[in-house]
């Protein structure tokens, strides 16, 4: 019900921009675009969020890229940290041997 999906706005079908055509999974569908005003004003080729036949808002390419950048950085930072721990562990292993590691209760 509250499910809404991003779709590419192909064109507006009237001068007042009340209706438009979006492409969704290779199919074109006519939707109501009258809510796309102000910050949500959308041009051809941009993406909108479609819900029960209405475009609810514009999908911002810039904001999407920014969120992805943060997510990728978070993922990378964590992967790097795990990598560092691994390197540190293997260095430790070389120094004191695997026995003490087990005794300290660290995961093998």
């Amino acid at each position, binding site marked *: *019900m*509250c*499910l*809404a*999906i*991003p779709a*590419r706005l192909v064109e507006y079908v009237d001068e007042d921009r009340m209706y438009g055509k979006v492409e969704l*999974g290779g199919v074109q569908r006519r939707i*109501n675009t*009258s*809510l796309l*005003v*102000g*910050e*949500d004003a959308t041009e051809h080729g941009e*993406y909108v*969020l479609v*819900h*029960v*036949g*209405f475009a*609810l*808002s*514009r*999908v*911002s*390419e810039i*904001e*999407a890229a*920014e*969120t*992805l950048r*943060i*997510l*990728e950085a*978070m*993922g*990378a930072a*964590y*992967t790097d940290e*795990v*990598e560092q721990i691994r390197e540190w562990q293997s260095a430790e292993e070389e120094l004191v041997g695997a026995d003490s590691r087990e005794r300290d209760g660290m*995961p093998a």
Partner: protein
Amino acid sequence: MKFADEFRDADIARALGARIAAESGGRHWKIMEVCGGHTHTIFKYGIEDLLPSNVELVHGPGCPVCVIPMGRLDDGIAVAHQPGVIFTCFGDLMRVPGSEGSLLDARAAGADVRMVYSPLDALKIAQQNPDKRVVFYAIGFETTAPSTALTLMRAKAEGIRNLFVFCNHVTIIPPMKAILDSPDLQLDGFLGPGHVSTVVGIRPFEFVTNTYRKPVVVVGFEPLDILQGVHMIIEQIREGRCEVENQYRRVVHDDGNPRALEVLARVFQLRSHFEWRGLGFISQSALELRDEFAAYDAEKVFSVPGVRVADPKACQCGEVLKGVLKPWECKVFGTACTPETPIGTCMVSSEGACAAYYNFGRYSRARERERVLASGERAVGNGHADGNGNGTIAEHEVRPIPVRAR
């Protein structure tokens, strides 16, 4: 699909899960996802499997089909049976059981019940059938209500007089408040409803941070959105912050969509009270048509029984909707109540927690998770016991899952 696939990256999801595990240690977290759309994503993509077992997602009341009480559905079915009526509704609603059968049963018995994708389809049917009275059974939160409003405005502008709306539109803030006021459930924070927020913005949730001191993060509907939202809530609490944050910036503006709010205000007004399944009557929690649109109001034009009907005794949807009961803890889950033969609403809608558990096979995992939680030996940190005797998880259970290098 653009703006969807990028937010489903498995490696980043695993890394986020591991990061949450590393940073959430020492206590049991309970975070409610308010919206049924989130519940759907969580089960579809197995988000719970990526989270450590001490981070629990509690499923909230934001499933529009689930919260409709049985009496309200009976009223709709009574309208569908009246002569000369074409009854239209979203597909989710067709199999919801009323006290004497569902809308599908009504159709089998001869009523003209049609499934529509959009309220605009109902308008079209009304135009094509001028000798019939076309009723649209409107459900949904603030996400969907503007669509009904715009449809009615267009019907009025075009002089179409044979379209009627049976309005069950509800608002999200009152049930959130009811849950926060309930002693049954102690939550740490909320994943805010992303698509409701495209309309209302993020400011209406400030009462949760100001009055109840719980963080809210409005999140999108892809797996990475949810995981990032969970991380943001945990980060807020760890840093001693309590704010409404917007993770779903690509779609949600802090002030919402002013045009949508304007059409809502033009067509609807708040009802004095409305009955919610599981939550009972909540004042000013739903919308009704303004007097200017009275001629389109199915409740005023048609006579309906208007009787309050209690849920079947075996049904525990109410407790599930409040997040007090896990779907599999319901006595009839998966036995007497299945998506094919549902007893309660939560098993019908794709956004219902029970249907999600059932359809995506998370049932056994959920049991296992519960077992792990229950077996926590040492209570650590400032976690809390819930009503089911499950104490705080022991620290040693909190282990980051292995991360594969990208």
